[in-house]
């Protein structure tokens, strides 16, 4: 894109700057649009599985429902409880949303279509998603109310517990790909399964890791069946209880942006990113971005499906699953994967 702006008569620095700004807006604005649409899709899928109709009033098939909700929320009054720490109370949703956007900076959407092609891409994503905890904890503390406080504690413990096993799962992928860069990880998956399947999931050592990653992703983003942070029968609405207006909506947008990120990571790390499912010449006719979008949407459908069908976990079950099953298992697979690679590839 830099070359395009240079051809308009700018010098290199300005062309680079304008191209970067355009790239950022090309990620951030469609992402927000995608989040609005994905909330609608989520509600529709959920409704269809319960034999309901879901949103169908605003716009054709209810397509504009999210925008109507957004407008309503935008015009609402922002209530700041008198007991709350006002500064922190307003900073929390800003952190949540900023962090949710930031992680997308290193996501490769198609070959070469990545804003910052840094060589520690996966480490960056892990670091950024760790920061998400701050928004939750600060909101729960600053609200100075009972239910947000409990919810924030729960959410923090839950998110950090599953982050540990996610870290080890990522190590397995990095070991196999031999790189930290997301684009290189995608390219390493070309023909990874029997020389024809594009994706690490078609690998007996990495398939269990994918299953763990999918489930950990749901727990990390506090999606059902792990949505204990907003168990409405116990905690009203979780750490967002005291929030209203756009501050509330930012938590919502951030949450769904994180869910989309998890779907995109499933696609990128295990299902070959922008590559077609099979390594056959004719399939490369379809642009890489379309494949990426299809796969990511498929994973979002799986997330919705699980939300509609699986009942909520108890908190002790959640922590047991994270610490006593996922952590030892992912640790074992780090040893297995690295040992196998030492014997076959590097030994």
């Amino acid at each position: 894109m830099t070359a395009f702006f240079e051809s308009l008569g700018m010098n290199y620095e300005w062309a680079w700057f304008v191209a970067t700004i355009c790239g950022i807006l090309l990620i951030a604005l469609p992402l927000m649009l995608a989040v609005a649409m994905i909330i609608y899709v989520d509600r529709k899928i959920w409704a269809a599985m319960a034999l309901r109709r879901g949103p169908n009033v605003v716009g054709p098939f209810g397509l504009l429902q999210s925008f109507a909700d957004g407008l309503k929320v935008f015009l609402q009054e922002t209530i700041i409880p008198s007991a709350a720490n006002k500064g922190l109370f307003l900073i929390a949703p800003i952190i949540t949303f900023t962090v949710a956007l930031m992680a997308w900076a290193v996501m490769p959407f198609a070959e070469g279509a990545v804003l910052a092609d840094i060589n520690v891409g996966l480490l960056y994503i892990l670091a950024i998603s760790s920061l998400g905890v701050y928004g939750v904890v600060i909101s729960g503390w600053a609200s100075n109310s009972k239910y947000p406080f409990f919810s924030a504690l729960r959410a923090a413990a839950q998110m950090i517990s599953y982050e540990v096993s996610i870290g080890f799962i990522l190590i397995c992928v990095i070991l196999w790909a031999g790189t930290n860069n997301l684009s290189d990880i995608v390219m390493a998956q070309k023909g990874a399964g029997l020389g024809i399947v594009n994706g690490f999931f078609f690998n007996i050592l990495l398939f269990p890791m994918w299953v763990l990653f999918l489930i950990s992703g749901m727990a990390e983003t506090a999606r059902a069946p792990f949505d204990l942070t907003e168990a409405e029968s116990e905690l009203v609405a979780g750490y967002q209880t005291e929030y209203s207006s756009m501050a509330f909506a930012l938590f919502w947008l951030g949450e769904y942006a994180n869910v989309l990120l998890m779907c995109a990571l499933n696609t990128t790390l295990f299902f070959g990113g922008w590559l077609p499912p099979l390594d056959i010449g004719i399939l490369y006719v379809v642009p890489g971005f379309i494949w990426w979008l299809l796969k990511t949407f498929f994973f979002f459908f799986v997330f919705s499906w699980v939300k509609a069908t699986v009942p909520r976990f108890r908190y002790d079950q959640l922590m047991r699953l994270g610490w006593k099953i996922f952590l030892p298992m992912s640790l074992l697979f780090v040893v297995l994967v690295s040992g196998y690679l030492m014997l076959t590839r590097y030994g």
Partner: protein
Amino acid sequence: MVDLTQYLPILIFLVIALGLSGLFVFLPMGVSRLTGAHKPSKDKLAEYECGFPAFEDSRHQFDVRFYLVAILFIIFDLEAAFLFPWAVSLDLTGWAGWITMMVFLGELLIGFAYAWKKGALEWE
């Protein structure tokens, strides 16, 4: 030498994302004052409770287990941070690197088994 300019887009992204979310928070506050939706009252600003005034301060003691989980997280996340550079340089370090890391993991496993035995991972 690492080329730091590749991180510059991320920095610009941070500025834009902060601006965007700041706008989302503060613009509706202004708009609601203009449209007259902003009408705070004492009851509206009270913290949420099930229909009665709160009995006690909400920031009371909480279970020590949350604290234990946080401490365990620090240990394991630091360990994962050690594993990242090891994982990309496995071809350079060879068997010596692999065995060293396995010894490190083994030591960590002893600590993990101890925490498990002590009941730090129990929630009932």
